[in-house]
């Protein structure tokens, strides 16, 4: 038994790790063949497919995005051009309105002045007419008052005719003077 153990031990010591056992080589080849086939036929095709699909999808989306972007840029251009036009138009309209406003204002002013002049004229004419009327009525009143006075003077003291005529003359003279001063 001991000798068998010794023989076994002696055998064990001679193993060389650089020389593969037959079963080692066999199972290694099997493993390699299985794994190579697996990776070659199953894993990598599936992997490549998913990568290609993604690349295509990304490229497609990039192209679409680029198109959308250029479209948006064109639209923005258009819009800004339209805006420019609108702005120019607005400023033209504003200018026109301003001119028109000024014209209207001037016209109104002129009209107002004319109206004012007309009113002044009318007022002056009226005042003159009224003055004339007043003058006329005053003169007729003064005449009747004079006649009244004369009749009184005549009735009271006809004896002293010289004095009486002097009174009448003085009265008339005063009246005329006051009329002259009033003019």
């Amino acid at each position, binding site marked *: 038994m001991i000798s068998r153990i010794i023989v076994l031990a002696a055998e064990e010591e001679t*193993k060389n790790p650089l020389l593969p056992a037959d*079963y080692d*080589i066999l199972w290694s080849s099997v493993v390699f063949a299985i794994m*190579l086939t*697996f990776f070659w036929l199953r894993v990598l095709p599936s992997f*490549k497919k998913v990568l290609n699909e993604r690349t295509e999808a990304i490229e497609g989306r990039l192209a679409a995005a680029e198109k959308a972007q250029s479209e948006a840029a064109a639209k923005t251009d258009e819009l800004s051009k339209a805006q420019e036009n609108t702005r120019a138009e607005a400023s033209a309209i504003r200018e026109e309105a301003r001119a028109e406003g000024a014209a209207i204002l001037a016209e109104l002013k002129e009209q107002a002045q004319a109206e004012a002049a007309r009113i002044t004229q009318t007022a002056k004419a009226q005042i003159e007419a009224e003055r004339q009327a007043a003058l006329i009525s005053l003169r007729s009143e003064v005449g009747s008052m004079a006649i009244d006075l004369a009749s009184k003077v005549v009735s009271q003291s006809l004896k002293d005719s010289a004095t009486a005529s002097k009174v009448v003359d003085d009265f008339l003279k005063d009246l005329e003077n006051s009329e002259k001063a009033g003019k």
Partner: protein
Amino acid sequence: MTSFTPKQETTLLDNALSLIIKASVTDDSGNYKGPSIMEFYPEILFFEGTPFAINRIILVRLLVVLLLIVLFSLWIRQFDKATKNQVFVPTKFQLMGEISLNFVRTSIAHGQLGKVDGDRFLPLLTTVFFTVLGLNITGIIPGLNISSNALIGYPIVLAVAAYATFIYAGVKKHGIGYFKSAVAPAGVPPALYVMVVPIEILSTFILRPVTLALRLTMNMLAGHLLLVLCFSATQFFVFYADGLFGFFGVGTFIFGFAFTLFEILVSFLQAYVFTLLTTVYIQLALADEH
């Protein structure tokens, strides 16, 4: 030596049983026993004596294949669903798959070979990267604790595949003249061919595949031995060492932890290096002038 009495044999068996318990970390005199190369030759579990023999490490290797197929099948399902439904925003899980596959595709294949040739050789490169990474990472997964790439079988198969692929790439592009341009670089004076040709033959057609396989195997093998050393020493110090020696276990455990993190890096790095070198060899074979 051979004349034991039955009683002696019983005693021996008794001793042996108690020793088996600590066999993992001590030899039969109770001293610490470091890991040996026999770590990589556990007992055969099935089909002993045939080329189909399966031990623990082969089981780990097959488990990784199963997990890789399950994982990538889930990703395939996501990819197909996204393609079918025209969903162009990947889910988180899908994105993880895409980033993983794109790492090989974009960073390695397209970077070295360009888009067209990169996609041509992508199946091999993807297989190399993910199987090496998957088989490496088991070295630090609790319960599995060994990388089946520490057995040289799989690295040899990959190196042969890389070798065949870059020769195929060269011959397909340049015809039989590929071998001439590969061993006799243009611009070298013909008088120097005596020296240059043997060197080129050696480096291109012999050392390339050998270094590819050895680099990976030895990294995984050494990494595993380091981890076993650290953690078995921890176990020995904590459970079997006398007195204050037990505290050494703290130090060895910290080292073991650090090397575990380091192994994650190495797993990834070796997968990357193997894939990148395969790509570079293909690229050199495709190049117009050497």
